[in-house]
């Protein structure tokens, strides 16, 4: 019986190694490995705020990401691999979206799904020449109009799926993608 078990493992492993897979991976990054430009942009010392740094490998282009909480808000700041700012994302509540955009978004979601639930909303700010530091972003650049990135649980005819949907500042849909759910068999059986 043990030999059969080993044979199964071998066959399944070989089949898997030959398959084509999307390549995306996120790993921890120590502070020493972060480019100085990126660290300077964030500007916090370790004593001020705990910043978690990650290196993300993907097909579009690798990037460095800083995640932290500041004044009870969750921020995610993305840089390219040499430390130049790409974008800033802030987690917000639905009530923070301007009324006119919120009604447009709700209308679009009602058209798209039989049922839906908004799980998470992030304001997304692309890098601009005015973003010299995180502090300058907080104090001045927040006047820049963001886009809204929503994580939505939506029901269509074929059942529930998770979606990432991006809306413009005025509430028109820009992009919609299905979020592939991780395999959970190792939780269930």
């Amino acid at each position, binding site marked *: 019986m043990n030999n059969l*078990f080993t044979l199964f493992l071998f066959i399944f492993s070989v089949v898997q190694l030959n398959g084509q897979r999307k390549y995306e991976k996120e790993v921890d990054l120590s502070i020493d490995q972060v480019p100085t430009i990126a660290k300077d942009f964030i500007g916090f010392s370790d004593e001020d705020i705990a910043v978690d740094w990650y290196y993300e490998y993907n097909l579009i282009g690798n990037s460095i990401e800083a995640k932290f909480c500041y004044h009870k808000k969750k921020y995610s700041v993305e840089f390219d691999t040499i430390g130049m700012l790409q974008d800033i994302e802030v987690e917000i509540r639905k009530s923070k979206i301007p009324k006119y955009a919120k009604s447009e978004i709700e209308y679009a979601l009602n058209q798209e799904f039989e049922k839906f639930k908004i799980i998470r909303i992030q304001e997304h700010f692309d890098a601009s020449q005015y973003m010299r530091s995180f502090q300058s972003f907080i104090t001045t650049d927040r006047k820049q109009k963001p886009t809204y990135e929503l994580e939505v649980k939506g029901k269509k005819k074929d059942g529930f799926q998770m979606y990432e949907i991006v809306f413009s500042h005025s509430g028109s849909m820009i992009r919609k993608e299905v979020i592939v759910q991780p395999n959970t068999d190792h939780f269930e059986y």
Partner: protein
Amino acid sequence: MSIKEALFFMMMPLALCSQSSYKVGFLPKINVGISVGNGYGINLMHQNREQFDQRRINYVLSDFAIFGDKKVDVRNKIALGYLIRIRDGYTFHRMIQQLVINNLSGAKMSHRLRLDETFGGGLEVFRLRYKNSILFPLNGQSVDDKEAYFKSGLEFLNILSENKYSSEMRIVPTLGYNLNNKTKFELSIDHRISQLWESGTKHRMWFGFNFYKKY
């Protein structure tokens, strides 16, 4: 969580077991899941149990199971299963009903509520089980391809057999490797403490090697 912390938690049941008499063995498992569309799936499982006894490894039993599951939400599932157990020349039949609620957006946690009824060898056993599992990536915020993880498992079982109630607790620390979203390998220590509220508490420890494949 670091690999050192994961190994520390893996070893905790060993320390518990050294306090009293116990049985030790192996519990290798193969699990193959097949998605059949529209949220439906089939799951096939085979598990062996082998026990150390007088410096020998003795074969104890084999389980073969089939489940049909259905997603009732994005991440939550109900399942019906049938398990056949071959032990000491007897065949046991087990019917299984389960509900699994997965929370994967923040802390990756799963709640499994399972009912099972076993018949065979002149025995009838009814069990109500609850299992909580929490997943900790060993690198980054999520378990990506070719990354390791630590999974803590805690299960409580209420057992009714021949009109007698008994209970069992299972502590299952697991070190896993996610080759990709469809292939996982796990090493686990399944520490079972039975007759929890009665005299003569029993300890059993199974070293598991689990292989999960999804199609």
